[in-house]
């Protein structure tokens, strides 16, 4: 796999998914982990985890993936690939009034984001199947979920506390 191919793939994935966060994860898992096998599932998850705990835009996990595969050049290229489509904003701002009333575009976007939700759940289940391999992984998963979803803790704190808990439990259980 070449850098150009990776950049093109990420550019394309970013174009067909809308919004931030995990929307690109199903596509990346399918193409980089399953089909091409250039990235392991662990690497993808690690990239996602650090994108969650760093400030700024939530889709910089592509930066991490770019760095893992091609070093600093890869990081720059993949970051540019997700940044560039932002320039579509300029023609959009010009055609604002026309677009505001376009039902077709609205419904297309709604269909796309809804599909995206279904895909993210499908990927989540398949990743969970491979990640939650033992009791301790389940415990740390449940623990982090409660901290993040119900108690709404800051994600850095969540990650640190959960990792520390996993670290300690791992030695304690042995």
């Amino acid at each position, binding site marked *: 796999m070449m850098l150009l191919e990776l950049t093109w793939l990420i550019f394309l994935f970013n174009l067909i998914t809308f919004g931030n966060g995990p929307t690109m994860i199903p596509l990346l898992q*399918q193409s980089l982990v399953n089909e091409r096998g250039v990235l392991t599932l662990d690497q993808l998850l690690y990239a996602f985890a650090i994108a969650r705990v760093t400030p700024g835009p939530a889709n910089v996990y592509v930066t991490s993936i770019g760095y893992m595969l091609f070093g600093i050049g890869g990081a720059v290229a993949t970051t540019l690939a997700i*940044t560039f489509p932002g320039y579509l904003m300029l023609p959009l701002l010009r055609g604002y009034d026309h677009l505001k009333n376009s039902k077709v575009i609205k419904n297309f976007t709604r269909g796309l984001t809804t599909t995206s939700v279904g895909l993210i759940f499908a990927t989540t289940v398949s990743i969970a199947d491979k*990640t939650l391999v033992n009791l301790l992984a389940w415990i740390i998963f449940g623990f982090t979920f409660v901290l993040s979803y119900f108690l709404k803790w800051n*994600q850095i704190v969540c990650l640190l506390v959960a990792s520390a808990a996993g670290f300690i439990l791992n030695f304690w259980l042995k």
Partner: protein
Amino acid sequence: MTENKNKDGDKHITKSAQSIGYWQLFMIFVKAGCAFGGGLGILAVLEDELVTRRQALSKEEFLATYALGRVVPSGTMTALAVAYGFQFGGWFGTVLALTGLILPAFGLTIGLTIAYSFLKNSEFIQLLPVTVLPAALAFIVVAAIRLGKDVFRPSLDFVLAAAAFGGAFFFNFNPAILLVLGGVTGIFIFGRENKENKVEPKQEGTAK
């Protein structure tokens, strides 16, 4: 406008939209790029800087641009950086705003990725499956639930999302194809829904 600016002197210029200089523009977006909490965290900083403090934009303008940014295929905040960068600094402004927004995350992400390659050659890698990885999965689940909140009700949205789930999970369809299909399906089913709501409100198909 430009004539007024020259007459009014420096103090007034600092209040007007055109006066946000390149350096200021860059720093506003660096600050936004340092915000935690993804899109909404960034949005909060931009609102504070551009609407409340500098009054460079009205609340309505700000929200309209945000709504448009959500339509752009790419991160919404990336789209906002291009929009405001251009508005306050032309083409060069877009580069400054984007760079400012991305730079903090870019540096930190690379730092942490390097940490991973060090971990890879140590015993700590064996601890990842019981520390960082299940935690990352929990973050994905939380994000998925939040994204899906609007979809979890008896609606056409739910049917579409469930169909996408089934197509991907049970039949292993390519996600890219499913997304495009989903968008096109949206044009038809949501278009009909809107019409039925207006013309025949009693129709059962649209009942909630």
